[in-house]
Structures are given as C-alpha cells and as structure tokens.
C-alpha cells in the first residue's frame, strides 16, 4: 500500500479566541486511495482533536463535507489526494460566514430553500382511496436530473452573483423549484414563481455557469435557471400580448 506525505493547510477560526481566520499546516501520511476527508479525519484522530468540519456519509450522498480545496468548491469525500500535489489548501465553503474552522453558517441557504417550497403541491386534493398519482417515464425524465441535488451548496460557493448580492435566491434553491415546476403531478408553479421569477430570483443570474461546472451530481442548476427565465418571459408575453390566453 503506497503512502505519500502531504502538507494539509487548513483555514482555522475559533470565534472565542480569533479575530480572523489563520492557516494551520499538518503533515499527513496519506494512502493512495484516500480522499481529502480521510486526511482531515487523520488530523482529527491523530494530530489535532480541536479541528471542526462537517461530514457524514463519505460517499457523495449527504452533501455535508463541501469545502474549498485549492480554491475550488469540492466535496472532500470525492477529492482524491492522488490528484493533488504534496501541498493541499483546505478552506470553508466560500460565500458563507465561517462558524468555526471548516464549518460554515448555512442558515441563509436553508431559509431560501424553504421559500421556494421544494415539495409537491398537488393540483387538486385526492383521497387516498383514489389511488396514486401516476407518471410516465417521459414525465419523470423531464425533472429527474434536478432530483439528484444533495444540497451541498458547492454551487453557492462558486457563484459570484451570490458572493456580490447575498439576497440572490441562488442556484440550488431555484433548480429545486424548477424540479417541482417540471413535475406533472405538481400544481404549485404560481406560488414558486412569486419567489423565483423576481429580481432576487432568476433575474439576478447572469449565467456565469460556475454552479453547473462545480456540481458534484451533474444537476446543471445554471440550465435550470435559464429555463425558468425562458418560461417566465413567455409568461410575460402571454399576459401582456395575449391576455385572453390562460397560462
């Protein structure tokens, strides 16, 4: 089993003692199959128990371990050490306040996610005895890609619009709104449009496309946002030029 010594430079911040973050370097003997999260776990278990970071599944499903690795938003469980040089710099996700070390404050994202109502709002109430809502494979394909979002927030860390305009609802939340709008069983689009078809919604996006480039699950939030823009523009023309046409 091959081993390689790397320098892990971690941005540390203790709100009780530090006025600003500082880098701390650890020498970590890494195995070939390790990811950055393994190196952090090594530090926590062997070198420095005070290091704080979030993680859970270690398999790119839970979305907890997102961080900046050499300046790029990555899931640390998916970032293989062997793909990096001997010095790796790890920082908390950009564009979020730092709670402690690599742990960020994510309340803003959670609040935005809640606002877009990311759940099925059925077109009409149906008693359970009436049976399930049926959907064809083609109807499923229309939105399936967006269901893969794991709320890891890498897209927010990559988005310069979110960095400059914190009110921007942002990539993942709008992509999830789009996921439900595209669902044949859903009837909640009008409610979601009030949140996402606004200045702080899709119209804040200038299609940098960074969100889709960093997405570990290939959700393509940038695509979702542009599709919401197209649909909202069609809505506007229908409303103003053809008011007799129902949406």
């Amino acid at each position, binding site marked *: 089993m091959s081993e390689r010594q790397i320098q892990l430079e971690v941005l540390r911040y203790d709100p009780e003692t530090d006025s600003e973050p500082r880098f701390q370097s650890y020498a970590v003997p890494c195995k070939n199959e390790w990811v950055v999260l393994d190196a952090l776990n090594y530090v926590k278990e062997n070198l420095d128990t005070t290091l704080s970071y979030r993680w859970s599944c270690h398999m790119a499903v839970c979305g907890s371990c997102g961080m900046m690795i050499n300046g790029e938003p990555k899931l640390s469980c998916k970032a293989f050490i062997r793909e990096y040089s001997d010095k790796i710099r790890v920082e908390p996700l950009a564009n979020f*306040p730092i709670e402690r070390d690599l742990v960020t404050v994510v309340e803003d994202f959670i609040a935005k996610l809640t606002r877009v109502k990311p759940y099925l709002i059925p077109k009409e109430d149906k008693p359970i005895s009436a049976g399930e809502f049926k959907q064809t494979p083609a109807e499923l394909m229309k939105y399936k890609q967006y269901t893969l979002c794991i709320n890891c927030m890498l897209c927010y860390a990559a988005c*310069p619009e979110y960095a400059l305009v914190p009110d921007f609802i942002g990539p993942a939340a709008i992509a999830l709104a789009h996921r439900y709008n595209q669902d044949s069983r859903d009837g909640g689009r009008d409610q979601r449009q009030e949140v996402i078809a606004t200045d702080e919604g899709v119209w804040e996006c200038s299609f940098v496309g960074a969100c889709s480039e960093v997405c570990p699950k290939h959700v393509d939030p940038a*695509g979702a946002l542009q599709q919401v823009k197209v649909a909202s523009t069609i809505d506007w023309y229908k409303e103003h030029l053809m008011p007799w046409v129902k949406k």
Partner: protein
Amino acid sequence: MSNKPYVREVSKTTWFLNPQQPRYKRYMAREVTCIFIGAYTFLLIVALKRLAEGPDAFQGFLNALHSPLGVLFNLAALVAAVYHSTSWFNVTPQAMPIQRGEEFVPGNIIVGAHYAVWAVVSLIILILGI
C-alpha cells in the same frame, strides 16, 4: 450558530481576478464583447443617418470606414462578435433542452443547429450584398 461568525469580504470590483477561478475571467470576456456588439449597432445607426443626409454624406461615412481606424474597429468587432456568439451558442442546450419521449436531444445537435442557421443567414446576406 455562534455569536461571532466570520464573514470573508469579496471585492466588488476585482472579484473576477481570483486566480483560482479562471472561469470568472472567461465569463467577463464574454460579457465585455457585448460592448463591441453595442458599438457596431451604433455604427449602423450612424450609417443610416448619413444615408438619409444624401450621397456625399454617405460617401464620407464609407471613406471613414476605410480608414485604418475604421478597419481596425471592424476587425476587433468581428472577433468580439464571433467570440460572443459562439460562447452563447455553446450554452444553448442548457437553456433550451429538447425532450423527445424519454430522451433528450444531444446537446451538440442543438448547438450545431445554431451554427447551421448562422451559416445560412450569413450566406443569404452575402448573396444579397453582391
């Protein structure tokens, strides 16, 4: 949440120079090219105005276009317009996906269709111009 979260400031004027994010510079390049598109549109409006003022005025406008500065601007505008157009064509599959049954039409067909329409329109303008 702790009562002292640390906020990292992002520069409002130099954010795109972040050396770790070259994609921001590519984005700014795409956005900056629109200045040339706008300037060329303005040039066409000036051409119309000169045309309305009579043959002498229009000839003066054409002479100005043939000056080294006029040629240089046209070349720069062409390069900018090609970069602007291709960078947008290449992202059309994201904005306008086409679903056929359970499959999506491959992105390169959507991009290719844009190039094809561009070529046809350019050809028509070329033929009309000759």
